[in-house]
């Protein structure tokens, strides 16, 4: 059925209010949409790596999750949810369980790109029927904005501070989506809260209902870490997508498909100037040109892979 925002509002809310995420946080926005993609009659077990999302949604004795939820540690959301899925497979095979369950693991970029990548890679390689969602806010926000391998180059973080000698983080971000594509799993996509959420919802639906492992990398703005006014959440996502900092695409059984192509690609300076973390370089033409060049190269590579014209 074609996506219809109004229809999706009819679905039950699977992440309740009353969680302790920051006002204006992008992560619960991502989570709510993904969970709406579940069929109402299906159960789910949700897992989360340690991080903002986990500590804010399951601060004893309150759980914001309407479905069964498990957290065990930081680096192992992949393995933990894989274990749950294995239990389901075993119990189902033995006829001890007949309901349908879906398995979704969430991790921030720290728990996914960095410390959790081994466990994620293992779970995907083994072919568990689960979805791993990275809500990428580009740093270790839970512990106070330390750099991760997802942090964009030049971002000012507490472990890559913009100093007089070193202007913030010195490395470009790891392209984890491509790393996951290299696993050859049936479904990988990159998305963001964008426009009417069609992109994210549909990708979540495909990820959840494609048998086997799936990976979603979803941009989740962090007003505190990125330093912008919290109400601009959707605007930040739009800039990220329209500058091609965060392209929206999916890979189904190895086939790349661009799911959104900006009519007018915006300059990367729009992205840099929108956030306090780039304040020290946003007006530096050399730096802006350097970043623009890399963004352009990555975008052109993606266009080629998607069979699109530049």
């Amino acid at each position, binding site marked *: 059925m074609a996506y219809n*925002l*109004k*229809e*999706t*509002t*009819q679905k039950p*809310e699977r*992440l*309740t*209010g*009353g*969680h*302790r*995420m*920051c*006002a*204006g*946080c*992008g*992560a*619960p*926005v991502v989570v*709510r*949409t993904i969970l*709406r993609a579940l069929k109402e009659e299906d159960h789910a077990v949700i897992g989360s790596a340690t991080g903002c999302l986990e500590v804010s*949604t*399951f601060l*004893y*004795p*309150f*759980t*914001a*999750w*309407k*479905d*069964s*939820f498990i957290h065990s540690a930081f680096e192992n959301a992949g393995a933990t949810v894989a274990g749950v899925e294995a239990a389901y497979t075993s119990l189902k095979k033995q006829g001890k369980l007949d309901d349908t369950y879906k398995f979704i693991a969430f991790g921030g970029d720290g728990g996914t790109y960095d410390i959790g990548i081994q466990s994620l890679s293992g779970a995907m390689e083994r072919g568990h029927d689960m979805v791993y969602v990275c809500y990428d806010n580009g740093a270790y926000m839970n512990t106070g904005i330390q750099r991760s391998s997802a942090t964009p180059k030049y971002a000012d973080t507490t472990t890559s501070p913009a100093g007089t000698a070193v202007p913030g983080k010195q490395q470009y971000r790891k392209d984890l989506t491509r790393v996951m594509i290299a696993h050859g799993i049936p479904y990988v996509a990159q998305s963001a*809260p964008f426009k*009417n*959420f069609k992109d994210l919802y549909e990708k979540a639906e495909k990820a959840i209902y494609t048998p086997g492992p799936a990976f979603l990398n979803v941009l989740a703005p962090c*007003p505190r870490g990125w330093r912008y*006014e*919290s*109400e*601009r*959440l*959707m*605007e930040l996502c739009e800039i990220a997508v329209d500058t091609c900092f965060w392209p929206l695409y999916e890979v189904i059984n190895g086939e790349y498909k661009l799911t959104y192509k900006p009519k007018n690609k915006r300059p990367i300076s729009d992205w840099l100037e929108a956030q306090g973390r780039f304040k020290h370089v946003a007006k530096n033409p050399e730096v802006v040109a350097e970043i623009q060049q890399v963004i352009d190269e990555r975008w052109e590579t993606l266009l080629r892979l998607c069979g699109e014209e530049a």
Partner: protein
Amino acid sequence: MSKKFEHDIVPAYTPWQDTTPGGVITEAGNANEFKTGDWRAMKPIWNSDKCKQCLLCFPVCPDASIIVKDKKMTGIDYDHCKGCGVCVKTCPFNAFDFVPEGE
């Protein structure tokens, strides 16, 4: 062992004998009982007359505080709304005012 509390909400400093075994919570979604409305410094006010029922405010709310009934926006859950203003900014029809809390 383990007393059953309403909504499984084990109060602070509950005796260990009464706390839930292994820290398990069996009332899913009981965070709904935790009111984050008092985090608000700014408050969105919905103007139903300006609202075109596009419902874009619904998915953008981090706190599930846009109340939608039968595919219609009907109001804001101030028990949980933290006043982030994302709905205010996202609304294409300027149907929300954003005012300091308490005004």
